[in-house]
């Protein structure tokens, strides 16, 4: 990334001042929201996660590597002795702040990420992967204020056969960069160890995922998405440790089948704390999110690293098979993965329908809808596509549509 601050105009200087200087404390909002959902949940194990998402602070003495997208390998960052921190943000106030520099017709997540740098979290390095256009250009916009931005180049086709060598090379370059930057010499033992840590997290997450689908009402969708949002901020080992407590609590918890009318699969754009508007409406309508294919939970935590050969190059190669090849992000070519994931979940857990959540202004998510609709129609699975953003203005309209959908399910 370019380090000379050559293209800074007046407006840009104002923006940078705004980012670094004025600090608006948004934590009261977060705390209020967290309190609200904590009361609903009634799970003791969730306290830690609600505290984490409310404070949005990370305690670590290691360097922090911030990243946006799911295709940045956490294992490499951990092996290089740093803490990974996913900066994806869906806060309404952050999005408003980001609008000062980002034009209005850009995806709200990009705006929120940009505005989110107002907060306490300041990563040492920012890693951006070439998934969607917005994030690529965001890297350019942020480059004068962040001297250390690393860009991982990924081709758009997520076919293993065609692009595995390119992925491998770009991950290896990233590994070399981190080694240089932090002046460390991680060996393959560090990589294996990092993979073991994230694999434990994956294993536990899958158990919760299956438990949620099989026992209706065992964990409500607020708790579930808070859990996944907390994994952005927490060390994988911390997350695993605290989720084990929660998992034991869930095992002893009975089902609440009477409270929910129907089980659905939620797909589409990510849902991150505190943007639980849709979940609020769905819970009110008695609609249980039994499974999901979102990149904030399923895409982030579901796939493990399976090490084929315990060599440094081999591990980095298999990391691409965790992060890029099975990616269900619509930025990549390969909707068949998303279709497989939806059909598998619906078939396996006997779900009643599919709700597709499309964040306004994210075009690629919207472009998946026609194909999904036709495929699900062929198989007789009810499908509802919703389009909304962070603001709460369209709550009434969404509520009507979801309730009508529930009526249709019977």
């Amino acid at each position: 990334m370019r380090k000379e601050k050559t293209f800074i105009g007046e407006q840009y200087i104002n923006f940078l001042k705004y980012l670094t200087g004025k600090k608006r404390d948004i934590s009261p909002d977060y705390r209020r929201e967290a309190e609200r959902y904590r009361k609903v949940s009634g799970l003791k194990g969730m306290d830690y996660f609600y505290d984490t998402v409310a404070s949005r602070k990370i305690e670590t003495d290691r360097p922090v590597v911030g990243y946006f997208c799911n295709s940045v390998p956490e294992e490499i960052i951990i092996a290089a002795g740093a803490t990974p921190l996913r900066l994806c943000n869906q806060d309404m106030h952050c999005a408003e702040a980001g609008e000062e520099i980002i034009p209005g017709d850009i995806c709200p997540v990009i705006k929120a990420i940009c505005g989110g740098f107002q907060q306490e979290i300041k990563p040492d390095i920012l890693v951006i992967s070439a998934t969607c256009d917005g994030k690529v250009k965001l890297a350019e916009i942020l480059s004068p204020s962040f001297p250390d931005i690393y860009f991982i180049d990924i081709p758009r086709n997520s076919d293993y056969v065609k692009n595995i060598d390119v992925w491998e090379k770009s991950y290896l370059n990233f590994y070399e960069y981190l080694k240089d930057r932090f002046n460390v010499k991680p060996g393959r033992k560090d990589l294996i160890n990092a993979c073991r840590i994230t694999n434990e997290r994956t294993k536990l997450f899958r158990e919760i995922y299956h438990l949620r689908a099989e026992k209706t009402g065992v964990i409500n969708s607020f708790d579930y998405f808070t859990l996944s949002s907390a994994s952005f901020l927490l060390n994988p080992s911390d997350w695993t440790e605290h989720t084990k407590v929660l998992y034991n609590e869930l095992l002893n918890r009975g089902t609440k089948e009477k409270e929910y009318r129907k089980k659905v699969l939620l797909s589409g754009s990510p849902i991150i704390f505190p943007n639980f508007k849709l979940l609020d409406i769905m819970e009110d309508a008695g609609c249980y999110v039994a499974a999901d294919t979102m990149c904030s939970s399923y895409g982030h935590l579901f796939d493990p690293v399976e090490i084929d050969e315990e060599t440094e190059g081999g591990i980095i190669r298999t990391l691409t098979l965790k992060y890029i090849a099975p990616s269900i992000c619509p930025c990549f070519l390969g909707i068949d993965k998303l279709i497989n994931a939806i059909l598998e979940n619906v078939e396996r857990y006997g779900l009643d329908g599919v709700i597709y959540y499309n964040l306004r202004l994210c075009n690629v998510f919207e472009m998946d809808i026609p194909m999904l609709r036709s495929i699900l129609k062929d198989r007789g699975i009810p499908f509802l596509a919703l389009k909304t953003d962070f603001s709460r203005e369209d709550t009434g309209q969404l509520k009507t549509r979801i309730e009508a959908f529930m009526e249709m399910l019977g």
Partner: protein
Amino acid sequence: MKNRITFIRRIVQIISLVLLVYGGYIFKTRLHTETGKPLFPALKAPEGYMSTTKFKQGSILWPSGDNPVLENYPPSLVCRFNPKGGLFKACIFHFISENLTWQTHIKYLLPHLTLFILLCFLFGRMWCGWVCPIGTVGDFITAIRKKMNIPARRFPDGFKAGLRFSSYGIMGVGFFISGLIGIPNFARFQCYWFLPYCQICPARLICPLFGFIKPGWEDFETAITSMFTILAWFIMGIFLAAFYFGRRIWCHLCPVGLINSFFNKGAGIELKKKAVRCNKCGLCADACPMGLKEMYERNSDGVYNQNNCIMCMRCVEICPKEGCLSASFFGKKITESKLK
């Protein structure tokens, strides 16, 4: 355990290696002596064969089939260069070429061929992945490479197809020469051209080492034997390099594997894919030691036994999706993929 199938496979490989190489010492059952009765009619060189050819006893071309000491102990003659061979000729290529030269009557061949085809029908090309001593030695070399932290070299599909094409060529030339020197007019060439494939096979230099006898690595007596010895050394070098850098790339070239591979489709052992469970991560294709991609590429349910598959079941083992890939034996599920 994390790599359960590979662990079992390694144990089977080691047991097979010991049995095939030292089986004669372990089971001292005499089957062909005056006192015992043979299980199968032994396949040996025709009467008077030794007197018409100019083989020297102890030379690389000495037909083991005529030596009662070498033939007495089962379970097998895995390779003609084994110290103690036996009844079943495990290397099908050796078996066919030898009998082409000897012009053995079909009624003697039939029990052996039937056994071979039955085993192939049951297990397909499992020989290569689970039993073959050359493969076991190669896997050991691969393990050394992994310890040295050198990533595997991967080859393009076209190269592998070329190797398979060459394999047909090797098989054709090998059988042609073996058949040709069986014709009485050409019999005088037998002392040099007997079993041309075996003479250049890397097993010529490896297998005798297991029996602590000297391999024929310095047979430079005539121009033709020198040529074969130099070729054997050259191919041995390729063999070591292939297994060191390229996992099982060698097995695309091996004509024994080629003959086995004809039985892979329709074999009793089946590798199945349930397409809806697939998340297209490509781990099955990446971990396949033969570098096959069909299991990854297919988008519908079915049995995908490929010709070049050595049935090591690494794909089933590594697949992280529950029930996506599975191995079954005549419809009965043996194992299926799950998260470790």
